[in-house]
């Protein structure tokens, strides 16, 4: 009886959502010139009229080469990064705060002194290969968030990869305990550094999180002003936070 009722409710919800789909444009038939994202893609939020690009008028930066040039608002080649860290950086600050709150909540609920053991000896292959793989995994994580403005990736996946390295340490060594003091202090200092970048932008440019450093050429490593620095702080913060989550989930109380 309960299953039938649940199937009916779920089917009604699916029907309602399918009806709601009629108000959206069809899959793949979106016209970006009606959306604000066209400005983000053209790296010019303030001045250009989108309607003129479609008609083919000569107006910056329509049909112009962006890669390898300078002089745009935001010089990162990856547009997703430029939205996350530059145009909507304030939202990212809020989301990092939510992540911090959930990490604090896990520490509050699961806090303990002793490390939980798995009750078995780790495999020989696991123990030996950890020594080889661990530096490579950490290096890959750092690579991901240093190159966040050029290639897919950025601070969030880079931090997650670093947390996966800490998880590998926990799995391969029954005695290993992460140093929570280092993790907490790194997390706090990186969170403060993000706000300090924002305040520096407020002091120099007149807006919170303003991109105050000189922009380079689109596509080179040292470009996009403050964007790689902010993504590095986000990467280290997310990495230490998720490492702290992995460490806290292995803790248990005495007795």
């Amino acid at each position, binding site marked *: 009886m309960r299953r039938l009722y649940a199937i009916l409710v779920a089917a009604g919800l699916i029907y309602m959502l399918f009806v709601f789909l009629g108000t959206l444009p069809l899959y793949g038939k979106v016209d970006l010139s009606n959306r604000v994202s066209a400005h983000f893609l053209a790296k010019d939020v303030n001045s250009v009229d989108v309607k003129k690009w479609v008609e083919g008028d000569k107006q910056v930066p329509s049909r112009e080469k962006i890669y390898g040039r300078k002089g745009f608002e935001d010089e990162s080649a990856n547009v997703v990064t430029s939205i996350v860290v530059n145009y909507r950086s304030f939202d990212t600050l809020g989301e990092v705060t939510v992540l911090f709150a959930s990490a604090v909540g896990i520490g509050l609920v699961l806090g303990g002194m002793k490390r939980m053991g798995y009750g078995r000896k780790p495999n020989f292959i696991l123990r030996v290969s950890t020594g080889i793989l661990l530096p490579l995994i950490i290096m890959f994580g750092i690579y991901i968030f240093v190159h966040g403005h050029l290639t897919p990736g950025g601070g969030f996946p880079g931090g*997650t990869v670093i947390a996966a390295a800490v998880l590998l340490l926990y799995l391969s060594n029954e005695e290993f305990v992460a140093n929570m003091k280092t993790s907490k202090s790194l997390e706090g200092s990186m969170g403060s550094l993000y706000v300090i970048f924002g305040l520096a932008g407020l002091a120099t440019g007149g807006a919170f999180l303003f991109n105050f450093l000189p922009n380079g050429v689109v596509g080179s490593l040292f470009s996009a002003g403050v964007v790689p620095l902010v993504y590095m702080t986000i990467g280290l913060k997310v990495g230490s936070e998720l490492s702290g989550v*992995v460490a806290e*989930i292995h803790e248990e109380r005495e007795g």
Partner: protein
Amino acid sequence: MSALIWIAGGMMVVAAVFAVEAKRILDSVIAMSALSLISVFLFIAMRAPDVAITEAAVGAGLVTAVLLVTLFRMKGGGDE
């Protein structure tokens, strides 16, 4: 490409039903991990490489590990 998306979607629906209805909790967690892994393909097909790399690192790696460690701490936990 369209047929591949349909196949991936069918596999995701099967994995989701299995994850909800499985008798053992361990099977349920593994099926959920498989669902996250297949969704990475959908993100690639929708030209979202940033989201795909994040989902591959988070959904297939960290979420599964966190849930499995929690399951281990509860000593099998589920009684169904």
